């Protein structure tokens, strides 16, 4: 366990090594939240509610979704792909730890760092200008924290899967791009799932994406109440468990086929 904690620390150091990235990061988050706020302002056009959400709830939804994204979002899929492409995966495999476990920990280190030092300041900045309303009920926050922890797991699992595919294709830039877009779209980050047509909502029930952004955001805006919260968390939890299976299978196959490129 020690080594995994150490890895999180290392990741903090790595994030801090590039200060410019850090400051622009805060700005980018603030700009994104503001842009979506004005977009929704135009869409609401004075209407009180849409799909059961008030404008105030929607503003909070947007702000929270982006904040949560800072936490669950990571680049481990790209890193795995790069390490395979450049052959550095070799040096990772001669270390006495689980490669995928270590990558997940790096993602977690990155997530905690962004959450604390990037998105909280960004959110603070935004709260000065936009009318955000945060829940005061402690239970809501506890459910929310649980929920974004599960978001992180689901998203990282999807990233690992996409990364492992590189072992077979050796170059899957296209797949990684597509995956990123699909997640932003279908996780509810850009548009809450309740705004999609009924048939699309029905289809999305069978995919893990809404477990990444939609569920935690709905919990924290108190759009989910009672049973809906439990169902949401259960949905996330089941996907966390289910996604382990393809990862295990693919990883086993990948190790057999491993070709270390270059030298």
């Amino acid at each position: 366990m020690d080594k995994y904690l150490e890895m999180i620390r290392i990741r903090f150091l790595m994030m801090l090594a590039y200060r410019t990235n850090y400051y622009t990061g805060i700005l980018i988050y603030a700009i994104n939240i503001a842009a979506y706020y004005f977009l929704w302002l135009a869409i609401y056009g004075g209407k009180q509610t849409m799909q059961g959400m008030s404008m105030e709830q929607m503003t909070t939804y947007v702000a929270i979704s982006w904040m949560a994204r800072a936490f669950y979002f990571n680049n481990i899929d790209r890193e795995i792909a790069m390490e395979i492409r450049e052959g550095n995966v070799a040096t990772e495999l001669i270390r006495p730890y689980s490669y995928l476990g270590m990558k997940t920990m790096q993602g977690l280190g990155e997530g905690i760092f962004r959450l604390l030092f990037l998105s909280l300041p960004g959110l603070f900045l935004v709260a000065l200008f936009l009318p955000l309303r945060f829940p005061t009920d402690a239970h809501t926050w506890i459910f929310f924290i649980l929920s974004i922890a599960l978001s992180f797991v689901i998203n990282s699992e999807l990233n690992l899967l996409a990364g492992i595919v590189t072992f077979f294709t050796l170059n899957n830039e296209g797949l990684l791009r597509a995956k990123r877009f699909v997640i932003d779209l279908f996780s509810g980050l850009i548009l809450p799932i309740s705004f999609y047509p009924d048939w699309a909502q029905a289809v999305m029930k069978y995919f893990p994406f809404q477990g990444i952004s939609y569920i935690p955001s709905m919990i924290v805006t108190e759009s989910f109440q009672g049973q809906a919260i439990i169902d949401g968390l259960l949905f996330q939890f089941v996907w966390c468990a289910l996604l382990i299976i393809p990862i295990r299978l693919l990883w086993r196959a990948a190790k057999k086929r491993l070709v270390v490129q270059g030298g």
Partner: protein
Amino acid sequence: MNAIEVENLRKEFKSYSSRSGLVGAFRDLFTRNYKIIRAVNDISFTVKQGEMVGYIGENGAGKSTTIKMLTGILTPTSGKVIVNGMNPHKEREAFVRTIGVVFGQRSQLWWDIAVQESFRLLKKVYRVSDKDYNEHMNHVIETLDIGPLLDKPVRKLSLGQRMRCELAAALIHNPPLLFLDEPTIGLDVLVKLKIRQFLKEINEKYNTTILLTTHDISDIEALCERVIMLDEGKIIYDGSLQKLKETWGEGKQIQFTFVSEMSLDTLKELTDGLQVTWKQGEQANVWTAHAPSALLPEVISRVVNCYSIQDLNINEISTEEIIRNIYEEGVVHG
């Protein structure tokens, strides 16, 4: 005890080839041509604990592939590998605790952070106690002279500095077996000497087994008593460096620099009846005679009596030359 046991080890790769032209490119979308390439072809050898072995071969001879199988990175197509009493692929995590690896061409340290942070992480990863770490690593850091580099990020180090840090990083857990894949590539003479001296020292101190691949024969001469030579995936020589020299490097080379230009025929005529071969050097007046040691005085006196010379050198045949000869002729000895 044997540190490494390898029996009929084989590794095959699929190598894809592209068809030519636009039509070919479209056909490649559906079916691709490939052929099986045997990078390592049924090799067998054992290395005893405490041995320093040079593993040499031309580019693409299969050296790196072998090392990757021995370290558990690649799965062999067939054959048996036992390293430190374990199967590298089956028990990867337990196995890699017992080895140290340096790949000269890639860094194992984290690029953006200070060297000491990498060391600290590796110390945790290998579960090295503070006491062992201080005792062992202080010595390593001092010998390799990397103390002043520890707080610098890896990207700011020169190649020589980085290589010394890499070596130290591979030794944090003081492994009984060390794989070095071209550790001195691109390094200057002073750093090379320092690294060689250090390797000798840990070999004596801890009886560390070292398997070394290199293109620099002087590394092998300085460190290894035994060499394994590989060509096209097959072992063509496995034995002592001394014996290799005796079998292949018999005789001496005499380099004459004549005052005027010489032709091969006149020289051949001159040493007629003697077992001498002549080779031209870089200029028309520089010629090298290769002759058995016993004939040395005879050859020199015949040449000097008939022609005036500017300079004369007597050399042992270098290991490099021996190896070049073996590759050219492709004969197995030893």
